[in-house]
């Protein structure tokens, strides 16, 4: 009654080949989409739609901003805020989410606040943050933290609540006490939810950033855009926008990679 695992190397190789083929096709389509987008952009700027700068003038502005170091100063300032806010927000959200999911008392105490603040966009707290926290780094990081926290806390909580009761029971009958159930069932079972929360939280952190940098910032991509807006410098606005897009995408990819590493066990679809 022993079964043997499939050991057909030919099959495995063909499978890998097909997979690679598929990925190449997808990549080609992605490239095509990018080229088409650029072409459309060029066309729009050529017919001079609302003074839209073309890709070339934006690229030359980008080179200029890179050469004089301005872009890196802004990017570093923004990334620092996003990462700091995201890290603090997530680090708080995971334990709070676990507590809320695990203990009824914690849920009862915290849920009203979480639900209440969820209905307020973090940006709406900026005026208040300025009054209480001044105009330095603190209020900026604070609103980003809040944005990341609110997203992550909900999904962590959902993850804990959604753990299959049968799995908890299975652990219990194998001798697991509360601590072991928590560490060995609740934590791994809610990991996919937490990672989804982190990815959405990162998105929320980036989208809060620009507005947060409207608070008397000296550097930052959001601040740069605001300055550029005053001087009607559309090229710089584009450079900043594209930089935010690319950076956000790269960070999301890192989380996606982490997600796929940590949750290979998941039954997808």
């Amino acid at each position, binding site marked *: *009654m*022993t*079964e*043997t*695992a499939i050991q057909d190397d030919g099959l495995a190789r063909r499978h890998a080949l097909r997979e690679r083929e598929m990925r190449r096709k997808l990549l080609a389509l992605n490239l095509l989409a990018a080229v088409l987008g650029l072409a459309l952009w060029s066309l729009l700027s050529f017919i001079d739609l609302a003074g839209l700068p073309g890709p070339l003038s934006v690229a030359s502005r980008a080179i200029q901003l890179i050469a004089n170091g301005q872009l890196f100063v802004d990017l570093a300032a923004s990334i620092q805020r996003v990462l700091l806010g995201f890290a603090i927000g997530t680090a708080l959200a995971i334990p709070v989410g676990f507590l809320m999911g695990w203990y009824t008392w914690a849920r009862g105490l915290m849920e009203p606040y979480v639900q209440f603040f969820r209905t307020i966009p973090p940006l709406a707290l900026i005026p208040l943050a300025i009054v209480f926290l001044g105009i330095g780094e603190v209020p900026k990081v604070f609103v980003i933290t809040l944005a990341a926290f609110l997203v992550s806390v909900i999904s962590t909580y959902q993850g804990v609540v959604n753990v*299959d009761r*049968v*799995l908890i*029971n*299975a*652990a*219990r*009958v*194998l*001798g*697991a006490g509360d601590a*072991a159930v928590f560490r*060995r*069932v609740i934590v*791994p*079972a809610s*990991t996919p939810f937490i990672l989804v929360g982190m990815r959405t939280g990162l998105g929320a952190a980036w989208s809060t950033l620009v507005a947060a940098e409207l608070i008397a910032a000296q550097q930052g991509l959001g601040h740069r855009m605001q300055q550029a807006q005053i001087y009607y410098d559309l090229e710089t606005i584009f450079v900043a926008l594209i930089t935010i897009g690319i950076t956000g995408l790269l960070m999301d990819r890192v989380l996606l990679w982490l997600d796929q590493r940590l*949750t*290979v*066990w*998941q*039954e997808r679809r």
Partner: protein
Amino acid sequence: MTTPKIQFARVSCAFVLQGQEFRAVNDLDLDIADGEIVTLVGPSGCGKSTLMNMAAGLQEPTGGTVRVDGKPVSGPGPERGVIFQQYALFPWLTVAQNVGFGLEIKGVPAQERARIVARCLDLVGLTAFADALPKTLSGGMKQRCAIARAYAVDPAVLLMDEPFGALDALTRVNMQEQLLATWARDKRTILFITHDVDEAVFLAHRVVVMAARPGRIHEIVDVDLPYPRTEDIRLSQRFQDLRNRVWHAVYHQH
């Protein structure tokens, strides 16, 4: 009389469904002796799983008492192994890690753990899949993994909820013989739920036939066939008679 291994004493379990009380198990008495194999059959929804969950300590009775070794059950414990109807494998652990889970909780050293896991995997024929994740297993393989996981902690009582339900006929017969061979060595007490009348008779000292609404014992059929149960016994007239009796008790309750 010696104390029964498992004793259901006027046990009831009620649920509230849409504001109405629903008796999944009603005022049920059943004693299971140490080393006895009792199979539980009955129509779907008659309270078999509920009864087993009460013995496992996962469901509190709303009336009466469930005792194991004379002591009222107050929660789950590794001396009562459970095989769930829904496999309940930990999807993030490999087959071998699933099987070793209970041993790890118990603090069994890694080397001995590996030895026990290997033996249990061999018993259910999953050695080649030790490092596979549950999502890559077929239903029958998952079930066998769940069986190995329960065996690994060497419980004195085995509570098995349709453990062979997802297996093909051949593997099923194999697993039945395997179960009896293991039982012949360790004489564990086994409460075994099944929908298969042949299986119920083949394994058991006694077949308990339940009826639904409210969940109760309809009839108990004593299986006076000797162990070891061989293929000859399975094909004997006496076996046929017993299975016919159980069949009637299950399918012609009214």
